């Protein structure tokens, strides 16, 4: 029963190949709102099930989780569809939740960590919808540079991607910092490697979307109100990161 419970939890706190289920579901859901709900709810379901099923977690799950996180971070390097990229990054980040879980982190800290990983991805899902509305698809290297065609959108996109790849002062940074500090040296090294892959994947996404000469077709940028709304959300994330500091206090 315990193994089955572990596998069920492994669907929501992704462990490869169970992680493929989330990515299939995420790619089928196209509307931004359900995508946002999915991104917010999925890891919390895992944490909820973990409490309900009373699963005994063997130590080797940490290795499995780290391998899953590394696999999806590596695969995100070669993804051009922004939706798939968001799904892979979510999978990679949530898999890392097993590490503080095994280190007996509090329920509040785990929920905070999950939210800190998911919230920037929700913003990215909204941006993906904007791209799909304007271009029919959200792919890197598909359109001419958005940095010049849609400067507001490009600015928001860069900030959101930086939040996704756990740049200071966003919550992901403090979560990873806490996890690395409390982990054993080997696990800390693996976590650092996954973080490096995230940075690489994020930079490739930014370059694929915003860099390039002006396109011939004029494209409408996002409105000022939307820009302010995104900015407020990002400032909220920074404040959450700084004030809660990922359980370091």
């Amino acid at each position: 029963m315990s193994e089955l419970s572990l596998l069920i939890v492994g669907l929501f706190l992704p462990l490869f190949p169970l992680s493929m289920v989330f990515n299939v579901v995420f790619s089928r859901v196209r509307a931004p709102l359900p995508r946002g709900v999915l991104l917010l709810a999925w890891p919390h379901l895992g944490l909820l099930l973990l409490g309900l099923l009373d699963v005994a977690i063997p130590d080797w799950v940490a290795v499995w989780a780290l391998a899953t996180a590394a696999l999806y971070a590596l695969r995100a390097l070669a993804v051009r569809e922004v939706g798939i990229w968001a799904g892979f990054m979510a999978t990679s980040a949530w898999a890392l939740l097993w590490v503080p879980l095994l280190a007996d982190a509090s329920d509040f800290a785990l929920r905070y960590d999950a939210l800190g990983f998911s919230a920037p991805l929700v913003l990215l899902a909204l941006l993906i919808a904007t791209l799909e509305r304007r271009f029919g698809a959200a792919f890197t290297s598909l359109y001419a540079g958005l940095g010049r065609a849609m400067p507001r959108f490009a600015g928001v996109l860069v900030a959101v991607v930086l939040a996704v790849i756990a740049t200071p002062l966003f919550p992901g940074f403090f979560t990873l910092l806490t996890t690395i500090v409390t982990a054993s040296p080997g696990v800390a090294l693996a976590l650092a490697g996954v973080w490096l892959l995230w940075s690489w994947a994020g930079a490739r996404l930014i370059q694929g979307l915003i860099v390039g000469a002006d396109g011939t077709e004029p494209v409408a940028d996002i409105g000022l109100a939307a820009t302010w709304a995104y900015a407020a959300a990002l400032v909220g994330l920074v404040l959450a990161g700084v004030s809660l500091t990922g359980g370091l206090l």
Partner: protein
Amino acid sequence: MEPLILLLHGLPLLSALLTHLLSPLLGQRAVRISVSFSVLTFVAAAVLLGYAVSGAAGLQVALGPSWGLLLFDPLSALMALVVSGISLIVHLYAVRYMAEEAGYGRFFALLDLMTAVLLLMVAAGDLITLLVAWHLVGVLLYLLLGHDTGSHSAYRYGFWTFFTYRIGDLPLLLAAALLYHAYGTWSLPEIFAHISSDPDILTPFGLPLAETVAVLLAVAAFARSAQFLLHTWLPYTMEGPTPVSALMHAGIVNAGGFLINRFAPVFVHTGDVLHWLFVVGLVTAVIGSVLMLTQNDVKKALGYSTMGQMGFMIMECGVGAFSLAIYHLIAHGVFKGTLFLGAGGVIREARGDDGVPKDPLYKFVVERRPARRPMPWMLMAAITLAVPVTILIAAHWLVAQDFFQKQGAIVLLFFGWVTGAQLLFSTYHTRTENLGRLVALIVASFTVVVLGYAVISHAFDVFLYPDPVFRAQIYAAADIDILWFDILVGVMTTVIVLGWVLTYYGERRGSRGASRVNRLWMNFYALISREFYVTDLYAWVARSVLAGAARLNVWLRWA
């Protein structure tokens, strides 16, 4: 004092915010806000340095309960002045240089943010603040280098910088984790106090903590200061705006030297790590200088020159001359910033030149001037070898009469002698009308430079490390066995003098040298022109990783 410290850190942040928000309203005039705030930041830093010089340093300002500690000590006060000074110059230069670029206001806002983060980095009094600032420098530099979103190459090379910096972030992160594990605090002053009282503590996997942390810090410094194998980003980032190149080469790249100085209380309890620093710095200095000599692009040559200088800076740390490294990074920042900001003018002048060298043949044939008689070679050789060593010993004797007891000082003296001698040696072949006058001028300027260097570096030593016992400990940590030291100095001297003799005879023989040697030389030149294939190797590795990731995605059907 505390309000002034908070003002120093708050001004650039406020400037970034105001410049960004008011750009749509004020247009290009918004950058006046940024420049004005830069002036104020510089003034605040200068006043704080004044306080530090008068002995008022040693203050800590806490922005938060567990992190956000700002140190006000001699190192942070000095570095704050350097950062704000270079930032001010870059701001002033960029007002006109960037005026026709898109995203003018954004550029200045990013420049202000970079200034704020650099100021935070030099004043960080705890590990979290240091990590945050260290990480953000890389991110902001990436955005500044990629200011022109229309340029794929600017982003490509900006990414190289970003990725190398991220590689350097991780050892610092691991070092922070080890220190927190060991002492249960993030505060740097507390950690240094613990290390001083018990330097022999072990890490969880049984290695000495001080040595392990020092190695990790050194790797972080190597990535930031473009040491060999982590250097490829530096010469290739010339696609970014020139003010950013100036800021990067004059300020940001020096962060490695700063980090080693900040963690001097850790490095003082290590021995082998300092020797390792010396070797890495030496290799980088030599390779950077060799690569610089083979460049035909002035900005790329400056990039490799920076690499060589950074190697020398790390080498200085390796011999225990920590404060000299700080002086070096400031001096380098000033002259390299000037060179970068003047590079455009040099290129413009070169375009207006007919390109015909004004050598003796030109003067003999075109200008009808008589060919000069060369100076006797033996006299030049005597001047070359004797003059620099006399000046160096006299200058060092003037500031510290016990300098012969420090191996590090002798090593630096040795390098000073080689540099001075090389300078004089090269004048023998200089095509000048009045060689005697040129040699006299070189000797005079060399004397001024060496005297200035010796006196100022001594003043830095006393200012940054007022405790004479600690100063002696750093030099002692870098010492090696005296027999080996003497052998190494002897071997190096012989190699260099032999090199000069070979060069002399090689030039006298002209093209009559053995063809095998020529072939070997050409192969070596080809190797240098491909920059030892390091960049090619990294590009191949990156392509392989991306291809592997793509293959995995196909096998796993993108799920």
